[in-house]
């Protein structure tokens, strides 16, 4: 059966340390001025008056129902058999329709190729070698869980059955494969 890769970002475990951010840069040779992945840290004041930090993983959420692929006129943006959204630079004309259409702002224009670029779950390098994405590999507090959603025994499915999760902008019907465990001190703020 085909794989369906997904990821969990657990807000309770995330410490916003940017290890993922830098590991991604190292593995994927991201030019210095741009990012495939950042973790935004925001201070929140909860309804009970307490303070908290909310962690937002800013990166591609790997939609099932992909606005970027839908709008791409040349099929340069596509979803592969494992459910990962990718870009074929050879087909890309640089209309940036996908960049604009992505409700998650996951895409940026690569300063060298001038084509849009984004998180690929390290598909081209690490997954091919049987390794987890770079961000997952280094995450100091195991805040990221990666795996095959089609495999009932996978780590990610186990975690999904045990933890409360939500997905960003679910109302858009994009069905992201990035699941977020809300901060139990604060609650869901999608």
């Amino acid at each position, binding site marked *: 059966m085909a794989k369906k890769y997904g990821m969990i970002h657990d807000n309770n475990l995330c410490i916003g*340390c940017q290890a993922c951010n*830098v590991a991604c840069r190292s593995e994927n040779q991201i030019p210095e001025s741009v990012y495939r992945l950042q973790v935004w840290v925001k201070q929140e004041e909860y309804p009970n008056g307490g303070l908290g930090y909310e962690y937002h993983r800013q990166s591609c959420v790997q939609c099932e129902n992909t606005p970027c692929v839908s709008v791409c006129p040349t099929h340069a943006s596509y979803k592969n058999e494992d459910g990962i959204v990718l870009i074929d630079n050879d087909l890309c004309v640089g209309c940036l329709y996908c960049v604009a259409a992505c409700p998650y702002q996951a895409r940026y224009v690569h300063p060298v190729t001038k084509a849009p670029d984004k998180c690929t779950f390290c598909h081209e390098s690490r997954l091919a070698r049987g390794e987890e994405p770079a961000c997952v*590999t280094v995450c100091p507090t195991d805040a990221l869980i990666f795996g095959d959603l089609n495999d009932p025994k996978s780590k990610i499915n186990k975690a999904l059955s045990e933890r409360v999760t939500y997905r960003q902008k679910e109302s858009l019907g994009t069905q992201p494969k990035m699941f977020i465990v809300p901060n139990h001190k604060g609650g869901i703020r999608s």
Partner: protein
Amino acid sequence: MTQMLSRRGFLKLSSTAAAVASLSSIPGTLGAMEESKKHYKGTTKFTPSICEMCTSSCTIEARVEEGKGMFIRGNPADKGRGGKVCARGSAGFNQLYDPQRLVKPIMRVGERGEGKWKEVSWDEAYTFIAKKLDEIKQKHGAHTVAFTARSGWNKTWFHNLAQAYGSHNLFGHEATCPLAYDLAMDDIFEGGVSRDFAKAKYIINLSHNVFEGIVISYARQYMDALAHGAKVISLDPRFSTMAAKATEWHPIKPGHDLPFVLAFMHTLINDNLYNKKFVEKYCEGFEELKASIAEYTPEKMALECDIPAEVIKRMAHEFAKAAPKALFDFCHRVTLTPQELELRRAIMMCNVLVGAIEQEGGYYLNKSAGFYNKYLGESDAKAPVLKKPKIPAYPKVEVPRIDRIGEKDSEFFLAKKGNGIVTLIPKATLEDLPGVPYRLHGWFIARNNPVMTQANTETVIKALKAMDLVVVYDIQVSDTAWFADIVLPDTTYLERDEEFTASGSKNPSYGVGRQKVVEPIGECRPGWRVAKELAEKMGLGAYFPYQDIEDYRLQQVGDNIDLLAKLKATGMASFGVPLLLQDKKSVAAFVKKYPSAASKVNEEGTIDFPHKIKLFSPKLEAVSKKGALSYEPYKYKEADELYFINGKSAVRTNGHNGNNAWLNNLLDDAAVWIHPKTAERLGIKNGDKIDVYNKYSTQKGKALVTKGVREDTVFAYFGFGHISKELKRAYGKGVNSNSLYSPLVSPNSGMNLHVVGVKVKKA
């Protein structure tokens, strides 16, 4: 077999990075080197090693990836760290190919701090240093040259060089960082102790921000404890990531941790919450302790530390109830006080009082080979002890060290000679210290950056300028190297092999130190080689009886080639089974493995402590009348000033990697945290440019208005406002916190004070 890869291809990224980061024309830097002379060779297999992007020394492995560069990850064989690295660790690759790093020796041609350099050969550099050292030796004596080496491996080489030369003024960086708790545990436990965060049910944390000043194993253990429902209490003047993750956050008054701990202890004793049996059986000095803290009632201390008395009492009760799975974290660096040693001792004693020692979820004694082997029978195989090459005796020095360690009456008697009180160096250069019949005239600094890491920058720079000789060995023209006469290019940690290490946690363990992943770039040389070659130049070659690092390692393991092979292949090895003396299950497992140890087991099925735990220190009493605990209020600031405190961010360290391009891009300026009410009072808005100033310095910064800091306090990350202009990305950006701190050296511990009064105004 390890496959070596040699190609320009794998450097495509770094050369783009180099192009972006404005080519450096400084002599001796990688950026100034001819393209054709650059050789890059690396191994494509994961090589286990140790990270050096900060001092936490996490286990890593790294490999060169064809056409790409390098990928660094945690060593998966290390279960404690889970194969993880932080952002700093991942950025190690960027340091390797930084055009601003130094790859050739350079010599000063202008004034100190003027930034005028010329490239010299290694031989010229050695000749110069040897000549200068000899001149100082003739004129003032070899002991007037201080040798600072940041960490273990560099100490091995350069402290050896120092003593062969004739100086006993040896230092590490410890007095700017962990020294006080090392001294405290030596005094109380006669050896090192570790903390079993993961199994604890109740943890009290005084600004020990392991989620930003990341030690991977601590961060994982704390997270583990939280995930398993442990209650973590964070007492921190600012809302750190630790405070955010903790169950409770109490913004304690900066510099007033000790009154809190004393009141906490007062409750433990006066409410009869302490473990009487444990105290009676294993401790000494309880009555003296009890008497000394009698006056520190929670009600009285609450006024000092700003934590309500009932909250202190509640915590003490909860803590005692959770014992032995209770852990009062003795922390790292916190908001330091002049009573640093008292503070760390008091914290550790709280854990002792509830008997949370040598049990899961508490403290445990570090069990090196020497410790562990004591419990093994004659016939049992012993944990290996690493050997050192035999060397001639060092020349004897007749005068005391500047910190007088080794003298009977030294207030710093607890400190090891290899650590020393590095914070005293500026004083010992600029003024006469009592009982020290000389001033310092030279400073040899291996991989330490006192200009950034020591309090009161101005004094440090003044001392550097007063020296006859300043030698700095570093990978870049650090802020200290900026004032040096000669700067020798060190290898980065990815380019060198190092000596094997031995340590102990619950059982003895061994590490490979560092292993080379790529061949050294340019002309940089590792420490074992530089010290040896310089010694040879000075006619002291006999003190370095090894060919190279491989030879040195062979001498370390002796005939234990298996250990050598294992360390090289996996990066680590351990001996025996984990042992917790007070944990029956652990003791039973230990005896099962080593039946001859049965004789050491007491009637309760546990093993007695090798020494009495000291709740009162006769030695401290003799030297400084501080055998018991006391609280002496200290005036940190004037009434119209704010407390200024600092801390580590997750993407930078204090002295070393602020100029790393990848890290610098994440955070290049440390905005100063200021409470909304204080900001309003001062007419400051979020993002405003501000001056933070006191009598020591004026620092320019940006305001970050947040409720995450006390109203009477401002906070900034440290490691900003770099002074060396050769660190082009980091130079002059952000508030340099050490410039604002006083030059105070805390009694008995030698620590700097990291709380000071400042005023803030809109710039």
